[in-house]
């Protein structure tokens, strides 16, 4: 101990300046009865608050801006039910639900991405890479093309089923006397390759170009025309799954230490991994079924979260959800207004924003010493 301490006292510090002592960062919250104790990360709390403000600002902007701009005062009036009837229709029936759907979709994708990245210990794991998005795509595409009589309301159900089935397939195929993070993500890549090829096969085979274009729009990811109906369908999933994911963050953090250390700590490694995988797949599936695979949100949001509050998922997971929601609202607002009256799908917008982000990330990851 002395050797290391001396080295430290000499000021021989490698790497960046250590973060300020943790004492100030965490607060313990304890109740004697019922016996409850928590540790609150103050930094994460502040970050959440700040992100929440940004999200609120983006929400208001998203409502105010558009082909028919509405002044801020009018927006507020319409929101409280005191506005011009025309404004109220645009705000309450068109833009507000759409913005809320965008936020929910982004939050689900952000949280799912964080779980996938933690589980696979790979910073590039995201719904569109691990097979979930491909499965949802394939199911949706098959419903649109093969069973055109199916009511459109069933499309999300099919997409969700596809996402879950694909995840189950990935898990099963990655099982080889136990699952492993590396096999999970690589098998996911393989399943995505095949799934995508099948999707393209269906797209290429439809006779009606209208169909093809409907498919492509779904695949690009869009919240166009989403209203209260979609929100009501999506909300239960988010309300149930997001807290489950947050509750699982503790196990996710333990799993990140590696399978053997985690098992030594008393973690049910396989059981927790399967549970977390199922939660994340359902979250991503619900999001994709609502808006199509809005790309790169599940990749970007967890990264932003880790930069802001550190790698521990107990803090990073809620922040990732918040960041994801904020990204999608902002991207959708841009996608609606940038080339107005032409509206581009929000997924294209996030891909355009995500591209430079992603490339920087790749090169940073590649030039760094080995790590998860």
């Amino acid at each position, binding site marked *: 101990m002395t050797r290391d301490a001396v080295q430290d006292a000499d000021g021989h510090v490698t790497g960046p300046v250590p973060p300020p002592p943790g004492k100030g960062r965490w607060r313990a919250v304890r109740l004697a009865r019922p016996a409850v104790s928590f540790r609150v990360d103050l930094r994460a709390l502040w970050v959440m608050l700040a992100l929440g403000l940004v999200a609120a600002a983006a929400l208001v902007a998203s409502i105010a801006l558009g082909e028919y701009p509405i002044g801020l005062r009018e927006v507020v009036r319409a929101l409280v039910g005191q506005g011009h009837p025309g404004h109220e229709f645009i705000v309450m029936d068109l833009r507000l639900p759409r913005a809320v759907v965008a936020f929910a979709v982004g939050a689900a994708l952000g949280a799912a991405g964080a779980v996938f990245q933690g589980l696979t210990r*790979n910073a*590039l794991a995201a719904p569109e890479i691990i097979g979930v998005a491909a499965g949802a795509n394939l199911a949706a595409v098959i419903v649109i093309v093969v069973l055109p009589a199916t009511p459109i309301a069933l499309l999300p159900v099919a997409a969700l089923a596809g996402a879950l089935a694909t995840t189950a397939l990935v898990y099963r195929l990655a099982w080889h006397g136990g699952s492993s993070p590396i096999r999970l993500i690589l098998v996911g890549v393989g399943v995505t390759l095949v799934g995508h*090829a099948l999707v393209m096969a269906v797209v290429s085979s439809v006779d009606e170009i209208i169909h093809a274009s409907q498919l*492509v729009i779904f695949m*690009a990811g869009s919240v166009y025309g989403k209203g209260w109906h979609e929100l009501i369908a999506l909300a239960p999933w988010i309300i149930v799954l997001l807290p489950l994911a947050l509750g699982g963050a503790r196990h996710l953090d333990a799993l990140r230490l590696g399978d053997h250390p985690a098992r030594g700590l008393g973690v049910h490694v396989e059981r927790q991994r399967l549970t977390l995988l199922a939660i994340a797949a359902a979250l991503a599936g619900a999001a994709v079924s609502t808006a199509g695979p809005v*790309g790169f949100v599940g990749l970007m949001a967890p990264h932003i979260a880790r930069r802001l509050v550190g790698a521990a998922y107990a803090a990073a997971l809620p922040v990732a959800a918040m960041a994801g929601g904020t990204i999608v609202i902002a991207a959708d607002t841009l996608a609606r207004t940038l080339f107005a009256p032409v509206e581009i799908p929000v997924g*294209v917008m996030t*891909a355009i924003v995500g591209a430079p982000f992603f490339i920087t990330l790749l090169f940073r*990851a590649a030039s760094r010493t080995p790590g998860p």
Partner: protein
Amino acid sequence: MSAAERAGAGLAGYGRLPLPGLLLALLGGLALAAAVVASISLGTVFIAPETIVAAFTSFDGSDQQVIVLTVRLPRAMIAAAVGATLGMAGAVMQAVSRNPLAEPGILGISWGAALAAVGAQVLLGVGSLTGLVWCALVGAAAAGAAVVMLGALGRRGLTPAKLVVAGAAVSALLAAVVQGLLVLDRESLEGARRWLAGSIVGTNETLLLQVLPYQLAGILLALLLARPLTTFSLGEDVARGLGQRTGFVKGGAAAAVVLLAGSAVAAAGPVILVGLAVPHLSRFLFGRDYRRVLPAAAVLGALLVVVADVAARFVIPPEEVPVGVMTALVGGPYFVHVVRRGMAPL
């Protein structure tokens, strides 16, 4: 047995077949010829082999003979050319990256080519075949350069698995942008959607002649690199220690991959996973000497795509499944198999 050799043998699973190379080459050639004949003769209209021969020896202008010369033969040739170039591209990539999962489709090169071609069509209005071929090459080059750079940067930091995931992420990104472009332009969607699935239906000799020069250049370059690649595949440090100028090898390999994969995508769209199993099988048959592995990968790749194209006509008749889907359906399970067995670095 060196570590590298062990890894190679482990990859093949059973060591090396003891059959003499000449016999194998002969068998491969015969199989390919048979597949090409089958490809010409089978389809909605059956064409007897003697009619095929007659189309060349005594052309009489009959419908069947016209079909042979203008539809079936170019299609078989395109399939063979695409398969040969993709097989070789995969072999070169695996040798350079020492990664058994390296393949143009997996590492995002195919989608780079596809994005550039679609982008040129939608945004710049490029319509000519030559223009599109060039765009595909440029796109493949960009994506390929990114991958090679990543591989070079990550000599320590980026494991084979991470490179594959990075490639998948690149592919996902490029595919997202392609889809976005197609949303904007319905006309291009109509033109591009079959091609994007990896299809060679309706190709003709004009297309073949357009891409052939690049394919031949790529094949030639790859074959010239065969010996240095064999050395390089032992590891860059070893190769450098043996006096190899590894920068040239890597640069040449990158150029070869761009020509091979880019021209293949220009011809048939992203036909994926051809370059995965084919080099594995070639190494299994011929060991680690890329002077043998590369030609073998060309023949086997051609064989795979020609057979896949024939099979594609009979899966859901009268519809035809795009050949890229067929190769994905064959290659996907193989990919999963390699992952499950645990991939030793090459």
